[in-house]
């Protein structure tokens, strides 16, 4: 494990950068207002992990996993977790409000403009482009976090199965995830019990 540690992991192994509340709030306000197309958590990963290095990959991945299992908008839950990690309860509140309040104002303005002027073809076209960019950000994040998975058969098979069932066969996500969690976590528990050197 240590052999393949990336620079980002080494840097954040013990000491977390101390991030002031204003900077934390600013980062999430920015994310809440410039990200489109549903891939919010990918953009959060990009800013917070890749660019600012406030949280390391493993912390982010585990937080994101929890955020997806807990009800609620995934992006907001991830923001809450990151804010909590960095500044405790106040940080969590700042991250969530930063994500929601400015976006709330923007959406009400858009609602008003929409009622006044209806839809513009350009806007539709540009939004389709931003949705595609969101897919690009999602792929970037998927590749980065995917690389950090343990390289064993059960883990690879689980990831492939989730992708195939939800992405390709389009089965509803909740039953698939609820069905696979006990199996995957059970296997992981067995692996944790088994004494292994190195990790």
């Amino acid at each position, binding site marked *: 494990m240590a052999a393949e540690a990336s620079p980002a992991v080494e840097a954040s192994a013990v000491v977390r950068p101390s991030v002031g509340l204003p900077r934390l709030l600013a980062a999430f306000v920015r994310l809440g207002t410039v990200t489109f197309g549903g891939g*919010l958590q990918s953009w959060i990963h990009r800013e917070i992990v890749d660019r600012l290095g406030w949280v390391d990959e493993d912390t982010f991945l585990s937080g994101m996993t929890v955020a997806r299992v807990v009800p609620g908008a995934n992006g907001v839950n991830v923001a809450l977790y990151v804010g909590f990690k960095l500044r405790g309860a106040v940080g969590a509140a700042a991250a969530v409000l930063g994500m929601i309040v400015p976006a709330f104002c923007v959406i009400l303005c858009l609602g008003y403009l929409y009622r006044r002027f209806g839809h513009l073809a350009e806007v539709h076209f540009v939004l389709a482009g931003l949705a595609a960019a969101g897919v690009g950000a999602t792929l970037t994040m998927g590749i980065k976090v995917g690389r950090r998975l343990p390289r064993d058969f059960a883990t690879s098979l689980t990831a492939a199965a989730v992708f195939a069932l*939800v992405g390709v066969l389009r089965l509803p996500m909740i039953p698939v995830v609820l069905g696979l969690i006990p199996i995957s*976590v059970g296997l992981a528990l067995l692996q944790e019990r088994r004494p292994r050197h190195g990790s």
Partner: protein
Amino acid sequence: MGRSLLALLLVFSPLSILSIGGGQATIPEMQHQAVVVHGWLSNSQFADLFALSRAAPGPSSLIAALIGWQVFGFWGAVAATLGIFLPSSLLMYAVGAWWHRRADSPIRRALERGLAPIAVGLVFAGAVTVLRAADAGALALATAAAVCLVQSTTRISTHATVGAVASVYLLLFYIR
């Protein structure tokens, strides 16, 4: 006034707790409640608000704000937004704090290890789902690939990425 606001809270709070897997999971039920049960909107109004919420930045669950606004103006929007985000955020806070405290327990390590491949599978499944929903053509695929490539090789910011993609598409729209 009070009753309308209360009705909004009562519709959106349970949806907040039920939105396992993200906000989009509750869209069908939200439509049922707003259109059929309460008659706040027509089906086509709901479809318009849905498109708007996809077009706006930030979390797509903010469609709740638009519905609330339609029902009871600004305070309706506030009540609906609180209803859709507050319960799930409190729950996430409780779970996140528990998760944080258990940093070194074997149970948490097993949960982490077991949940990680599921999360990764969902990330890629999500990418495919979005592309399919948008019946994406070559241009969308090329955009996604370009963004992925540039982000993987440079430290380009989110602003610059979003700005560049928007400019290119605007340009393409006019020269088409």
